[in-house]
């Protein structure tokens, strides 16, 4: 190992892994752009503004959920309950808006509070009761699914007030025709990125994910960190639920759970470069991964591939992503 040399000249090459590695992000962007261009050549509608906007919007809900999932996985946990949490927030806010005139300004704090409470419950169960996270969130998956059903009582959301629809599809500033959900996602991404990268709490998430025993020895409050991360994941899932109902204008009891968004969010986080064994989280990669997924799925539609093969694509994508990550890990044992 030449780098140890005291008086040795600095190695000419840079370190193998610079602190801010853009490899995964650049790869994803390149692959996505390439896909857009190639499909666009065959079908000009694909690169039309309408379609680009659609693909962007389509990825927002999954991105929001996957950001929370990324934090949880980076801490070496897993959260399956995001799907029913999304559905619950969608149903509660949608039904209240539909029947009781809940305004959007009330809906946001309501959803966040709901996510905070239920996510904290996840966290407490994982961190204090010594139950593996996959079992806990499997249990709360059923619990929260039941809550959706209890609350909706057979009804469903089929129309939302115009303010909601505008929030889900319109744009805030005329000068900047960026759809509001995308703007919201960018803000959430910025917050999460800042949290993970520039705060003590964020760094301790990674420390716990790397080696929880060592983190404990270094004096970090491991239990408390776990609870907070699950709470954040819950909040993001519920916010995504609100976004879902705004964007689609409808929701049923199977919102979230029906699409297996819990599995999709794990897949997207892995594609984005987050390590399933914890310790490494790539939020930008997650968002790009979910955008990539959206582009792939839309491209399949344009290429007239039967929609049935869509999730096979997802599966292969996960295997490829994990394999590429694995090879890099093996190179430096």
């Amino acid at each position, binding site marked *: *190992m030449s*780098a*140890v*040399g*005291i*008086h*040795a000249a*600095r*190695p000419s090459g*840079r*370190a*193998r*892994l*610079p*602190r801010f590695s853009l490899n995964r992000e650049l790869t994803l962007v390149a692959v996505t752009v390439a896909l857009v261009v190639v499909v666009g050549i065959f079908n000009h509608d694909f690169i039309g503004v309408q379609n680009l906007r659609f693909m962007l919007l389509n990825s927002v809900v999954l991105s929001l959920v996957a950001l929370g999932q990324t934090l949880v996985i980076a801490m070496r946990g897993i959260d399956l309950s995001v799907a029913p949490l999304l559905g619950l927030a969608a149903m509660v806010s949608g039904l209240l808006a539909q029947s009781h005139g809940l305004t959007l300004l009330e809906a946001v704090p309501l959803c966040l509070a709901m996510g905070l409470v239920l996510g904290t419950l996840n966290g407490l169960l994982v961190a204090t009761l010594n139950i593996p996270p996959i079992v806990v969130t499997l249990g709360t998956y059923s619990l929260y699914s039941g809550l959706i059903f209890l609350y909706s009582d057979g009804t469903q959301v089929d129309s939302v007030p115009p303010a909601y629809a505008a929030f889900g599809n319109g744009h805030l500033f005329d000068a900047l025709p960026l759809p509001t959900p995308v703007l919201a996602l960018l803000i959430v991404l910025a917050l999460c990125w*800042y949290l993970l990268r*520039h*705060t*003590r709490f964020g*760094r*301790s998430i*990674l*420390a716990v*994910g*790397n*080696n929880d*025993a*060592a*983190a404990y*020895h*270094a*004096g*970090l409050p491991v239990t408390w960190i776990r609870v907070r991360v699950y709470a954040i994941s819950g909040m993001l899932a519920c916010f995504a639920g609100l976004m879902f109902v705004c964007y689609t204008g409808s929701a049923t009891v199977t919102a979230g759970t029906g699409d297996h968004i819990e599995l999709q969010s794990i897949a997207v986080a892995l594609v984005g470069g987050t*390590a399933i064994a914890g*310790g*490494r989280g790539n939020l930008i990669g997650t968002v790009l991964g979910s955008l990539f997924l959206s582009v792939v799925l839309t491209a399949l539609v344009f290429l007239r591939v039967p929609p049935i093969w869509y999730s096979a694509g997802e599966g292969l994508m996960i295997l490829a992503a994990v394999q590429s990550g694995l090879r890099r890990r093996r190179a*430096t044992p």
Partner: protein
Amino acid sequence: MQVAAKASNHPHASASTARVEHAVLSAHGVVKRFGPVQVLRGIDLTLRPGRILTLMGENGAGKSTMFKVLAGQLQPSEGALALNGEPLKLASPHAAHAHGIHLVPQEPLLMAELSVAETMFVGRLPLTGGFLRRVDWSDVRRRARNVLDTLGLDIDIDSCAKTLSIAQLQLVECAKALLHDCRIILFDEPTSPLTSYEVDNLFAIMRRLTAQGCTLSFISHRTEEVMEISDDIAVLRDGKLVDQAERGAFDRARLLSQMVGREMRDVPRRTSSCATTEPMLEVAGLAHKPSFENIDFTLHRGEVLGLAGLVGAGRTEIAETIFGIRRPDGGEVRLGGEPITGIACHALIRKGLVYVPEDRGRHGAVLPMTITQNITSGLLERVRQRAGLLSSSDETQISAKAVRDLRIRCAGLDQPLRELSGGNQQKVVFGKWMATGPRVAILDEPTRGVDVGAKEEIYELIEDMARAGLAVLVISSETEELVRLCDRVLSIYEGNIVAELSGDAITPQAVSASYLGKQATGESTLEGAP
């Protein structure tokens, strides 16, 4: 072993107490017990400011335990610590850190995915900014860079911790100590995983640290490097301090005799030998780089052959390679004349080769499973089956026979193994392998974690095995054990056979000296440092 401990005294204890006023960190009469086992038997130790104190001793002398006490990882059962003359109580590694004491473990705990700079700051990242308190990365990087520069380390602070070698990790730990104003740094056997170049490097840095006023202590087995780097030397034997003096007072002969014990130790030696000349296990030129190479020996029927050496000398790797767990890079192994090189272990077991691993909890046995399940786990194919189902009566018979024969003390055959004492657990592992009817048994540290009384029983078991015509290969880090058991002893030093002792030549002194004294003659490369 106990006899030896009683016979020894500590001649320099008075000298060390006289020096206490100059001490930075000192220990007085430290005793540490783990259950009934006493590991430290009243140790007085003094670290003097700006100097390097080396702890020397054989395997199991209590050096690492002493360090853990000093670093707050273990609480002493008796005795006290003092820092600059003030009494010191260390409740946790955290508290020790707060007092400026830092222990560099042999293989530092890893935060694999974090940057080198950040691993040095885990748990105490500096903050900056007003309303939004954020981590001051420029401060982190500047301070990390500075401290690495102070030590002259050319490690990229932005690279992932997992890309570092063990040597680099140790140096980063060392830098971490400086970073957090730890002036007392303890190194737990830092040099054994390092190459000689890396050792030179570490020593240069250690000298620089002492020049800056740090107080260091480290553990080593290698007399050569100890003589090179130390200012003071303390020798531990059987949990007692037998000698502490300045380096000048020592020469190699004195070091060796202190470590091994000057007086004749009253070690029982086996009287009868059942060794024949019929070769059972022949090993020729076996190599598994970088662990060992050129291993040649022949093990005969009825013979007990010992492998002596330091922990990490490559003995376990030799055993695992013979047993087919690792693939050899070269060489040949024959079992009763039949070549078995590279055959996987499940086939070797059927051919009559068995291996009792070093780590009973991880490899040797499954502690949550029952005695019967453990005993039959190596020969499930041979348990009588009816319609594809194991005959529980046959299983019980096999297990009952083993329990009877080996006198395993248990509440019942369906008792989970973890409820048994270490000695009885080990006997179950023996029983598991004896039930397969082996021809050759490799025993890796057969009495690890076994209390003194049960050790003798295990020795008798091994003798019985030899008497029954097995060829036995014993790997042990306890010299007395090899003396007690073996017809022949091979000394392994850094992956090579360096000595062979047989018959009456096998004495504790001779066995220890055969590998401890090796570096006095053979390892001149370590002296190449400026």
